[in-house]
């Protein structure tokens, strides 16, 4: 990660919105796409997500619209989730696997009347685009929506209040994992209820020329809730990743980074009875293997430095390694994921992390969600 400057802005592929915002933040290179890592510091932004509303530039996420007479069959053949009965204006999250059963990306799939929209992670956007092009049949058309549209997200315990300023109907009528096509300032937009952090979460897809004015409009919103003055703060990827891990929301750059579906413990993005998709046979072989490992969450109160890749031990025997590590401001501890041998990959036990200096750090495996989102105790009015 580096502070934004002309060099980064010129080298990385970015939307006009990100280019504007990059002057106020630090950029991260996500496979050639520039994403704002932080604006004012991850901890400050994290508190906005967990207590107010965090505004997120999602313009680097890939958006591919699949249409044509075979669009459902084509998309279905590439997804681990069954979408045959996915209703119009509903969304689902699925894995996209290659023929070896390796995770290409975790994608959101939006069912429109005559098309399906696929949203990718920023880091896997080109990989998914290439995969779609490679597998494409004659009865399918692919439109890269990023050429004309920008996605913006906002999440937090009061995000629904901000969402209410956009939609012309009662916000509580939009269920989780649903979306609608509406107009905002006489422009067609897609309004989605779906989030990453366990808080109320929404995304909107707007025409490029409307992106900056929409961002500014959303950012300037505020309201008093009793003694609390609800604010909207721009949030970068670092804070988002902390909040995602706290509710064990998978992230393509962690769970999809060379781990199998079983190791990443993301079988819940696979429809149990679905058999017709790329990677199915390889996935079945993975699941039948003995001697396996999978991810488990852990906390570490000790301040000694741990790093990704450090060994995890049980009574001097190596049982795994650390694959993700953040500081959780709510827990006031390090929070991470370790890839552990199945025989000890459970919550509620004590292990050791061994850092580069050979020092031992006590790790406690823990149960997800590691932090209870405030939104779980707030009802929309």
């Amino acid at each position, binding site marked *: 990660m580096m502070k934004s400057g002309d060099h980064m802005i010129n080298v990385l592929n970015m939307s006009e919105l990100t280019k504007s915002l990059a002057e106020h933040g630090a950029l991260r290179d996500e496979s050639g796409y520039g994403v704002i890592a932080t604006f004012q510091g991850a901890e400050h932004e994290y508190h906005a997500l967990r207590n107010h509303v965090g505004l997120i530039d999602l313009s680097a996420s890939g958006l591919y619209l699949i249409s044509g007479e075979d669009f459902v069959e084509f998309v279905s053949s590439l997804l681990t989730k069954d979408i045959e009965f996915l209703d119009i204006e509903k969304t689902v999250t699925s894995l996209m696997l290659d023929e070896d059963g390796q995770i290409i990306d975790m994608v959101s799939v939006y069912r429109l009347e005559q098309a399906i929209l696929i949203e990718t992670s920023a880091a896997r956007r080109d990989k998914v685009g290439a995969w779609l092009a490679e597998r494409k049949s004659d009865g399918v058309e692919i439109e890269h929506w990023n050429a004309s549209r920008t996605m913006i997200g906002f999440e937090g315990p009061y995000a629904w209040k901000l969402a209410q300023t956009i939609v012309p109907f009662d916000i509580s009528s939009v269920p989780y994992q649903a979306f609608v096509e509406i107009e905002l300032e006489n422009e067609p937009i897609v309004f989605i209820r779906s989030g990453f952090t366990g808080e109320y979460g929404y995304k909107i897809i707007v025409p490029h020329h409307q992106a900056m004015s929409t961002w500014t409009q959303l950012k300037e919103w505020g309201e008093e809730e009793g003694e609390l003055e609800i604010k909207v703060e721009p949030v970068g990827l670092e804070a988002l990743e902390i909040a995602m891990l706290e509710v064990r929301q998978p992230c393509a750059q962690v769970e999809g980074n060379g781990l199998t579906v079983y190791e990443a413990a993301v079988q819940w993005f696979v429809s149990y009875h679905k058999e017709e998709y790329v990677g199915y046979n390889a996935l079945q072989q993975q699941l039948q293997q003995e001697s396996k490992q999978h991810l488990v969450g852990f906390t570490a109160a000790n301040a000694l430095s741990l790093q990704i890749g450090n060994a995890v031990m049980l009574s001097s025997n190596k049982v795994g390694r650390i694959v993700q590590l953040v500081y959780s401001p709510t827990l006031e501890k390090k929070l991470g994921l370790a890839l552990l041998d199945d025989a000890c990959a459970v919550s509620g036990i*004590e292990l050791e992390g061994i850092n580069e200096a050979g020092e031992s750090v006590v790790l406690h495996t823990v*149960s997800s969600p590691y932090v209870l989102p405030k939104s779980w105790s707030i009802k929309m009015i």
Partner: protein
Amino acid sequence: MNTYEAGFAQAAERMALTSKIKEIIVQRLDMDIDPAFITDDQPIFGRGLGLDSIDALELLVAIEDEFGVTIFDDNMAVFGSVNKVADYIVSNTKAAS
């Protein structure tokens, strides 16, 4: 710090509990999947296992029947994951003994 054997024994005990919870979920809610396909940390509701509030009430009764532990219906955080259910059973079984 755990000894090697004690650590594995503790893990095995925990796995037995989470496996039993998964079996109960599948049986009581008449789900047509292998219980082992459910992961310990996935959300039970919404996009996790796709259960709803009616299923939650069925699970409250099932947990009480099987483990003698009462979960109140205003404490839905317990159903954050199979692991959270297991934590609740362990802590409330200990508290009662």
